[in-house]
């Protein structure tokens, strides 16, 4: 019964975010999910298993949908101009990620992205 818990929480989240299985599937595909709508439907109803990685993607899709529905109710403050204040932490975070450098691998790989200008 405990192994069923994540699934039930996910279906509850789907209902809470007012998503149809089709809408949820679109969000899941947008995040890189590889299952089809029937896989999701079957999993959410407890009929078929879903691999852990796909469950993670599904969970993220649900969290973003919940966040969106919550955000729709937020009230803006007059003193805070809507700007890119929030972009700064993201930029720093991304720089940190890139600064981690390649993993301790024997050979140096190619740079990840080629540019042509």
């Amino acid at each position: 019964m405990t192994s069923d818990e994540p699934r039930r929480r996910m279906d509850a989240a789907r209902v809470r975010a007012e998503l149809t299985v089709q809408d949820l599937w679109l969000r899941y595909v947008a995040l890189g999910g590889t299952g089809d709508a029937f896989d999701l439907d079957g999993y959410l109803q407890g009929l078929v298993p879903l691999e852990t990685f796909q469950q993670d993607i599904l969970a993220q899709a649900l969290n973003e949908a919940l966040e969106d529905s919550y955000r729709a109710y937020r009230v803006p403050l007059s003193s805070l101009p809507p700007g890119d204040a929030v972009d700064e932490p993201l930029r720093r975070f991304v720089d940190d990620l890139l600064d981690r450098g390649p993993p301790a691998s024997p050979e140096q790989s190619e740079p990840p992205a080629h540019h042509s200008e």
Partner: protein
Amino acid sequence: MTDPAQHADGAAPQPFEDPVLSPPVDLGAALNQMAGLVLSRETVDTALALVTTLAAATTAGTLGAAVTVVDEHGKRSRAASNAAAEQADALQYELDEGPCLTAWRTRQLVRIDDTTTDGRWPRWNAAVSALGVRSVLSAPLLVGEESIGAMKVYCERPMNYGPHDEHVMRLLAGQAAILLANTQSLAEARRLSRQLTEALASRDAIARATGVLIATSATGEQEAFATLAAAARRTGRPVHDVASALVAAAVARNARG
């Protein structure tokens, strides 16, 4: 698509039945106009407005016309030709009774000759006769097995509609139902196509970011996704934004050398 009429331009159609009244406008031209609309890219609202205008124009003495659409979002009127038609419809939904709801439920054409004497929908009849509606004709909109609503005309005179109007309304309702079903599925297909395009763009960005992370530190796709999801949680941004920022930053670094 069947061609509803083959009349040469400008020629008045010869009715196949002897009509009680001659049609006020060229019905063949009207049907042609609707059939053409299916092929062009018009919005649902434009299509509905055309349907009610045609209904009002092809039934003599009509005060107002509207279409009732019934779907998973509930019952509502669209493209009402005037305020009276809109009010008369609103009363049907409010009282949950009336000729259009009956036409929709029973799939039968409904005619009221006089709202002051008709006993079938007492509350609705009383309410609309106060608005000045005396006679009503309502035809169901049928697509295959499914009833998707009703189309109706209201008149301020009693005994206004006869067998000829019933015939006209049946013809128009048949076309209107096909038209509505078509425009609704076209709108639905467009919406889905737009959503899929957006989903694929997001998916591309995430796949590129996953590649960047695998090239730098992640041990696999799953770990790369977990890293992106963690960054999303820490920064309060969706994974798609994090992925785009990551790819942009990687490109900028490479450009600097």
